[in-house]
Structure formats: structure tokens, C-alpha cells
């Protein structure tokens, strides 16, 4: 008998099959991810979790009997009181009698198919759904951000990383230690020989010198100028980027005019911003502020799901935000981001108030303030600018940390972030 330990065998043998499966189920999985994003909290959105997808297109059909046709008979265990000739009412659907039913224990029989996605897979699909450019997907999807830093020298590495100074220093000391003749020495010797050849061709000195030259040349050949053992490479180590903390304010108008579809768009926007910010900061807090004609800080559920009635006064939300910052997030310790979603309604008289709050209090202390105006459909884009848009419009040009965009569709969300991540603004 042999005992073999297979535990060290390469893991993830099923990866190829899993990729094929996900590709096959792409449409269903994307739909399920969309749903999950709508249901989950922003903070948990990227945690891989169980999703359920319908099995259409994933069924593995077989010729099998339709259990509802034909004469059925079967043998079952556990008779308690039945006598021959008794009649047993049939259960409404399936189950029970077991006559002629093949067990569907491998998951094929169920209508829906549930399984778990890893965080990476989930993010991949989520980001792809938002039509992010590939490069962005990569950077956002990565959970830990590292930079490489110089960390001493190594004896192996890639040619581009050769450290010339070190290498040459090693080479020099080796050459000195092994007494490799330098070019200068050789040249001097040759000169002397040439000189002697001219003046005293038969002198013993000339023979001596010739022999010495031969020896030295041999030595120079045998001891290489640069030996592989001299070579040193710069060593780099992946170091997690210095990470600080950030707080993200989500502001949203929850008055009656915001429809569910608008809120869904807003949620995607907030989620994406959260993922971006999370990439940069190890610790990210989220504060939800909803407003009608008055504003309050709420938890996420209330934020997205409960409805308020009332007018719309945006400045109240900014005042509330200012209050929360003052209370809990000292500007020196926190990077402050704000994202606001609204359908653009605002009390006309509130416009100047909003502008002054933004210019005076909010923008100077926030890293970035993103405003999205969500609208139900393309048609709405054509109407005249909303009150809020008109109030915010000047800041887009006057402040670099302010962006305003109109969003009608999932694909519109990403461009809002382009500004945020263009290189010249990396001075965070």
C-alpha cells in the first residue's frame, strides 16, 4: 500500500472550469450583481458573497421522463398504517410519493442556482457594468495599494535594475585584490618595449619586458574586467502607501421628486466613489445626510429606503455637513470627500445661500466635492438648467476640487471620476 500526500498539489485546479462557468453565466451574473449592489450596504458592496442566478442557459438538458405522464409506480419505505387498496391523496406538486421521480440532488432540478463570488470577481463585474476603462478597473479593483521603494541591493534582478556604482566598485576591488593589470600599466609597458626596441633591440631588459607583458596580458585575459559576481542590482520592496483616513459625505435629496431609479443611480455613484476613496485610504468613514427642507444625519438604510415629504432646501444639508465635520472630523486628521446627488430641485431663494456655504465653508476644507444630477431619462437632459445646477455651475470652473455632472444612465457615472483621478490632481 502506498500513502501519498496530495495536499501540496497545486490548488485551484477548478479555476479554469470556474472561469468558463462565469463566462457562460455572464448575463445572469451581471444581473445578479446589479441586484446585489442595490440591496447591499455601500461598505459591504465589494465583499464577495452568495448570489443567486436563474438557471436558464445553464441547464444541462437530458432526455428524461416527464414525471407527470404515464403510469407511475414506486416503492417507498415507512408504511405506518396503510393496507392494500388504500388511497392516498397526491401531494399538490412533486414530493411525497416518489413514484417515478428521479432525485434532482445535483442542483439541476432547482429553478435558481446559488453560489458565491469572490471579492475580485464581484468587483470585476460591478466595474465592468459601469463601463469603466480597463486601466481604471485594475486600479480600483485592487484592494491594497503599494509603491515600490528602494531597499538595498541584491545579487539577482532584472538588467534594468543594475546598480552601476556598486557593480563597478565591486569590480574594482576585485581587480585590485587579484592584481589585474590595468590598461595604463599595459600601455606603459608597451611604450617601454617600443622604446627599447628602437634603442636597444638586443638588451636583456627587452626580453624580460616582453615576458612580463605576455604574463600581464594573460592575467588580464583570465581575470575579467567585469565578473558576474560583481554585479549588484537595486532591490525594491513593495511598501504599502502611507495611508491616512478619510470621511465621505453622501448628501442626497430625498423629497418626493426623487424616484427609485434616481436613487439607484445615486447609490451606484456613491458606491463607486467609496471604492475609489477606499483605495487611497485604509480607513474610510461614511456619513449619510439626507435632506428635504431640513437635513439630518441618518444610517444607510434610512438614507436609501425611507421617504420624506417636504420642500427642498439644499443649504440645510451643507449646514449639517459643516456641523458634523466640526464635531467629529477635525480637518487636520481627516481627508474629507463629499458626494451629492439630487434631481436638481431647490428653492430658488436658497441659491445664494448654497453658493456662499460652498465657497466659504465647504470647498476650502474638502478634498473633493462631486455633485451628480440624476435624471430619469435622456429627455430630461434637454430641459433648462435646474436651480441647483445654476447655483453650482460657477464652481466647476473656479474650483478644481469641485465637479458637477449630469447622469442619466449607469454608463455616465464613471466620467465624473475622471477629473478626480487625472494625474495633475494627485496632490492629495
Amino acid at each position, binding site marked *: 500500500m502506498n500513502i501519498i500526500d496530495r495536499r501540496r498539489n497545486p490548488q485551484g485546479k477548478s479555476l479554469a472550469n470556474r472561469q468558463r462557468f462565469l463566462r457562460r453565466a455572464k448575463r445572469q451574473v451581471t444581473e445578479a450583481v446589479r441586484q446585489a449592489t442595490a440591496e447591499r450596504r455601500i461598505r459591504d458592496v465589494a465583499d464577495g458573497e452568495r448570489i443567486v442566478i436563474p438557471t436558464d442557459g445553464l441547464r444541462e*438538458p437530458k432526455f428524461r421522463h416527464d414525471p407527470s405522464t404515464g403510469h407511475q409506480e414506486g416503492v417507498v419505505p415507512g408504511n*405506518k398504517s396503510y393496507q392494500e387498496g388504500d388511497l392516498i391523496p397526491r401531494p399538490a406538486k412533486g414530493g411525497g410519493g416518489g413514484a417515478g421521480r428521479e432525485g434532482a440532488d445535483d442542483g439541476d432540478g432547482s429553478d435558481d442556482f446559488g453560489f458565491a463570488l469572490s471579492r475580485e470577481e464581484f468587483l470585476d463585474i460591478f466595474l465592468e457594468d459601469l463601463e469603466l476603462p480597463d486601466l481604471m478597473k485594475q486600479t480600483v479593483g485592487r484592494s491594497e495599494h503599494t509603491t515600490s521603494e528602494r531597499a538595498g541591493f541584491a545579487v539577482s534582478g532584472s538588467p534594468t535594475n543594475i546598480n552601476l556604482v556598486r557593480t563597478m566598485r565591486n569590480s574594482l576591488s576585485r581587480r585590485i585584490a587579484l592584481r589585474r593589470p590595468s590598461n595604463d600599466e599595459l600601455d606603459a609597458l608597451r611604450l617601454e618595449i617600443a622604446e627599447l626596441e628602437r634603442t636597444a633591440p638586443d638588451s636583456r631588459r627587452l626580453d624580460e619586458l616582453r615576458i612580463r607583458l605576455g604574463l600581464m596580458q594573460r592575467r588580464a585575459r583570465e581575470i575579467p574586467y567585469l565578473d558576474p559576481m560583481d554585479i549588484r542590482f537595486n532591490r525594491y520592496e513593495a511598501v504599502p502607501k502611507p495611508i491616512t483616513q478619510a470621511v465621505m459625505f453622501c448628501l442626497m435629496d430625498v423629497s418626493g421628486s426623487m424616484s427609485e431609479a434616481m436613487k439607484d443611480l445615486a447609490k451606484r455613484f456613491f458606491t463607486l466613489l467609496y471604492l475609489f476613496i477606499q483605495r487611497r485610504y485604509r480607513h474610510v468613514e461614511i456619513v449619510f445626510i439626507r435632506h428635504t427642507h431640513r437635513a439630518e444625519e441618518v444610517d444607510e438604510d434610512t438614507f436609501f429606503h425611507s421617504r420624506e415629504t417636504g420642500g427642498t432646501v439644499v443649504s440645510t444639508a451643507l449646514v449639517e455637513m459643516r456641523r458634523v465635520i466640526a464635531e467629529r472630523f477635525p480637518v487636520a486628521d481627516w481627508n474629507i470627500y463629499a458626494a451629492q446627488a439630487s434631481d436638481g430641485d431647490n428653492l430658488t431663494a436658497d441659491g445664494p445661500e448654497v453658493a456662499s456655504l460652498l465657497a466659504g465653508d465647504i470647498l476650502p476644507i474638502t478634498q473633493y466635492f462631486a455633485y451628480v444630477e440624476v435624471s430619469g431619462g435622456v429627455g430630461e437632459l434637454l430641459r433648462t438648467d435646474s436651480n441647483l445646477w445654476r447655483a453650482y455651475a460657477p464652481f466647476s470652473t473656479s474650483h478644481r476640487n469641485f465637479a458637477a455632472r449630469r447622469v442619466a444612465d449607469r454608463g455616465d457615472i464613471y466620467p465624473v471620476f475622471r477629473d478626480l483621478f487625472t494625474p495633475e490632481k494627485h496632490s492629495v
Partner: protein
Amino acid sequence: MSSAATTAAGGPLFAESDWSYDTVRRTYDAIEAIAIGELGLDVYPNQIEVITAEQMLDAYSSIGMPLMYDHWSFGKHFAYDEMLYRKGARGLAYEIVINSNPCISYVMEDNSMAMQALVMAHAAFGHNHFFKNNHLFRQWTDAGAILDYMQFAKSYVARCEERHGERAVERVLDAAHALMDHGVNRYQRKRRVSPKSAEKRARDRLLYEEETYSELWERTVPPDSRRERGAAERAQAPAIPEAVPLPEENILYFLEKMAPKLEPWQREILRIVRQLAQYFYPQKQTKVMNEGCATYVHYRIMNRLHEKGLISDGGIMEFLHSHSSVIFQPDFDDKRYSGINPYALGFAMMTDIERICERPTEEDRQWFPAFAGGGDTMATLKEAWANYRDESFVLQFLSPAVMRQFKLFKLQAEPDAPEYLVDAIHNERGYRKVRRALARRYDVAVGDPNIQVAETNLDGDRTLVLRHEAIGGRLLDLDDAVAVVQHVADLWGYPVALVEVDAESQRVLREHDRVAPRR
């Protein structure tokens, strides 16, 4: 065997629940002494492989084979099994055993030592003996070659993917999997093709293709005339020496040999799936016997180890706990009921055979005159293990005592009747009826729909006609049938029709629409 004697003197083989290679080896030797020396089992050499939970899931999803080609359906099963396991809804099997020579048993690393002993007795001796001796396995499977063949299949499919693209290969595999149950020869004896020579043949074929590949030809000659050349070649090619006689129930075999438009690599893939189906065909027919045999063997061996003082009381309690959950049979009205548990039925019947051999009642003498009171349990069991399959085993050996123990009863119903009729119960009048009905349930020929290729109409529009001989008016599930017929049409390359007729009267019950191949 001598090692067993030496360890017996020193008390239990293991005291702790953690296992080590040393204890596994000593325990294996002690088990072997009982299995071979006392029970007289005949087994392939054993190989025990320790694996992790993830590897066990892997093996699960690729239908228990250690090597398997890539296909999305395995990924689907893996995802599903993994989720159930992570949720804790389902435990993993303690072992998986491969019908190969040497016989490979996979055991989980986190089994306790008592479980490892149980698993070795169960798989390495119980299943192993069954694989080596049952006539179906002897006749239909080649234990010495299966791993080589799977190695070949895996690399062949991978190469096809490289060459023709994943999608193209996937389409063929999808279709072949749908027809897997109809890819076995049920009656004629399998021709022996050694997998090594099959591999060589496929390799030669590829090599030839590579050698004769001409860039110029592929790029300059318009594809139409190429196809003509191909058709002409195919016409002369000796690859299809004679038409497969109809009707033919091995649909995969038929398509592999006769489908006009398939490329050689597509035929080879059909062949691989067909070989796989044939390999698993005996296992399908012997679930009760196979599990029963393994369970009976582990039960005897573990008790014997305990008798000899080689397993502590604690060890045997742990064993009994898992043994009794393995052979648990819920009643039909229990929420946990999902059919008759093959472990429970097999084990009950085999311990019952032991009882009949050794302590028969008057009833047993009437029912089983051949061996009741014969005393030689192992000889009777070994004879049964070698020469029966589930259907015939139940028909021959299911005793009234077991029917009473399980309180079996027979139900029947016409399709639209609102009630089931209790046709027979476990009494004098019902025993034979119940037994016959149960045996029929294990008959794969009854369980799988009987579908044959009836006509090909090669001179006309090449419509392929499939014919379902329905027994007792049982029709095919419509959705699935349409989907499978589509797969057949894709492989055949021309329209396919499906007719369902009554097996006895030959009356047409249902005619399906003709399905044209997808482009």
C-alpha cells in the same frame, strides 16, 4: 499479517484522534489482515492519497475523477457544492474511491484516525473488492487504463481548445454531455481499445494534419473548393468503413461514426465522452450493491478490530456514530426523505444474507432454499457481489424480513388520478409484488428513456429520426427533450425529428417538431 499479530499484543492501534502516517500504515496492515486473511476479499493494490477539503470539492465537481478535461459544467457544480459546504448545509464525503488499478482512495486530511480506519476498510477493501470482482466492472471497464485515458482526454481537449477555440469545443462538449446517458453500449461486448493506442492514434492524426498543413493552400484556395476536396477525401476515407446498422441506441456512437459534417477532432471528443459514459455505466447500475458491499465490509472489519482489542471503545463509538448516520433511512413522509438510501438498503440486505446463512427462520428456508442455513456467509456474498447488479440483486435476495424492517409498500397512480393507490404492502400477499417493483426501479433500462436512432434518410434531406419507445405511456420532459434534440441537430448537421411511440402497440404518442441545426 504478522504485523497484525505483533500490534495486537500492544493494545489499540491508536489512542489519539489525530492521524499520522505511521498509525495509518499500521492500521492498514491490521485491516488488511482481516479483509484478506479472514474475509477472503480479493482486491487491487491500494493507494491512499490524502487531500484537503478544496481538493475533495474539486474531485466532486469532476464526477470523482482525479483528472478531467475543462468544461463549464464542472465549474458550476463546484460553485454549487462549495457554497453548500461553506454554508454548512452539507458535509463532504470522507472519501472518494476510483475504480482503477492500483485502486486510489482519496481521504480527507481532517478525518480523525478512527474515520481513516473506517474509510480504509470501506473504500480500500469494500469498494475495491467490488470493482475488481463484479462482472459489470470486469466486462465494461478497464481499471488499469482509465487514468491514462483521462490524461489523454484532458490534454486532447486542451489542445482542441487551443486550436479551434474554447467556444467551439464547448459546443461539442455541451452536446455530448446532453447525450451522455445515450452513449453507452448496453448489450454488445465492448471492443477493447487500449487507451494508449487511442492516444497514439489521435496523436498521429494530429501530427499528420500538422505535416500536411499548407499556409498557401489555406489562404489562397477559396474555402468552397477546399470543402469539396475535404468531401471527396471523406468519401474515400476508410474512417467510416460501413454504415452503422439501424436502429442504434448508442446515439453518441452513431453520431461519431455517421454524422456527415463533423470534423475529426469533434468525433474524437464525442468518443471521449462516450468512453467516459461507458466507464461510469456499471456504477450507475450497482449503487445499492457497491455501497452495500463497502458498508458491510467496513462494519465487519471495524467490529473485528474492536474484538481484537485494536480499536478502543471510544474509537468504536465514533465509528458507530458515523456508521449509523450513513445507513439512516428516513420514512417517506419524513422531511429528510429523498428516496431509498442505497447504503441503508444494501447494508440491510447483506447483513440479512448473513443472518439467513447462519440463523435462518422457517420463512427464510422457504424463500431461499439455496443458501439458507448454509453457514458460509462470505461465499454467498461474494457470489452475489460478483454476479449481480442492483436490479437482479434485489429481485433475488430481498427477503421478507428486510421488507418488514423497511416497511416497504408499493404505490401506483395513473397520470391524472387524484390519488395514489397502495398496491401492495409488506405482507404475505405483497412481498413478491413489492420486490418486483423495487427491482424495476433499479433497472436502468427502465429508468433511462429508451431512445434510438431510427432513420437517417441519407438519400433525401438527411433528416435524422429519433424514436422514443415509451413504457407505460411515460413521455419525455418537453423542455429538456427540445434542448437535447437541438444538440443532436447541431452535431448531425441536418434536421432532426423526434417521435414518441408506445413500446408495446407502436402507436405514435407524440411527434415533436423537426429541429434544424444552429449555425
